[in-house]
């Protein structure tokens, strides 16, 4: 169903690791450590700057892939991976885009399921990768059939 979308990418979108957003995010997962929040602490730390929590890239805008339409309901987040070349620094600019990496179907006890693998990427201004974040989204049989008929 999404096989023809494999390899498609969005245009890069400029995001900034905003201090206020990091603070709110850290609070929402109960991880309010000074390494994320306190500039004075950060200066003396190994990184020299505040960094963002590992799962923070969830908040970025990765742009839209043309013609990719996903249903609002019936999607299951099956797996999630983050890979970092280095931590994200508070205040830095990140160029984000998303790519469809794979799509496959499997038949299990609950019918024929679709598996959509998307990769969100964050690069620095020179185009070097800072992180990638890969999601496996499971599309259950009812939703899959509904989409095919639509």
């Amino acid at each position, binding site marked *: 169903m999404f096989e023809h979308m494999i390899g498609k990418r969005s245009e890069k979108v400029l995001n900034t690791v905003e201090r206020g957003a990091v603070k709110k995010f850290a609070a929402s997962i109960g*991880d309010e*450590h000074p390494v994320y929040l306190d500039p004075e602490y950060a200066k003396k730390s190994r990184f020299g700057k505040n960094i963002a*929590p590992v799962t923070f890239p969830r908040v970025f805008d990765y742009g839209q892939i043309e013609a990719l339409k996903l249903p609002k309901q019936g999607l299951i987040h099956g*797996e999630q991976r983050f890979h970092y070349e280095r931590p994200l620094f508070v205040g830095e600019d990140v160029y984000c885009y998303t790519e469809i990496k794979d799509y496959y179907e499997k038949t299990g006890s609950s019918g024929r399921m679709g598996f959509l693998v998307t990769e969100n990427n964050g690069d620095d201004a020179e185009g070097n990768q800072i992180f990638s974040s890969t999601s496996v989204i499971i599309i259950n049989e009812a939703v899959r059939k509904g989409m095919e008929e639509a």
Partner: protein
Amino acid sequence: MTSLANLQTGDSLEKIELSPVSRLDLIKYAGASGDFNPIHTIDEDAKKAGLPGIIAHGMWTMGNLAKLFTPYLEEGFVQDYIIRFAGMVFLDDVITLKAELAEKTDDVLTFNVAAENQKGKDVIKGSVNFKLHK
């Protein structure tokens, strides 16, 4: 606090037990993450989607689990964090975060990590590669 680099294979980090999951936790996460899927905050929408009630964002649980490593960020950083979502988290569930050192090289520590509910079932599980500073 012990240093991560001194841990031996089979050693565990100190577990963290979270407060029972509250609606406000999920409303806060929705706002902070931008994920406003109503199955996480609005009862009627969760029921319409066939769920017994609202469920936590998988990424909320994953975000929480990573904080086991925050106290050690002077020693390195989380290079890889891989999670499979194995079960749903409901309101009032009590989630415990755990990590055990599975493998060790000169500069990378690989932990098996999981978040477990009050019934002893892992709701998310996976691994963390912690890269030590040279």
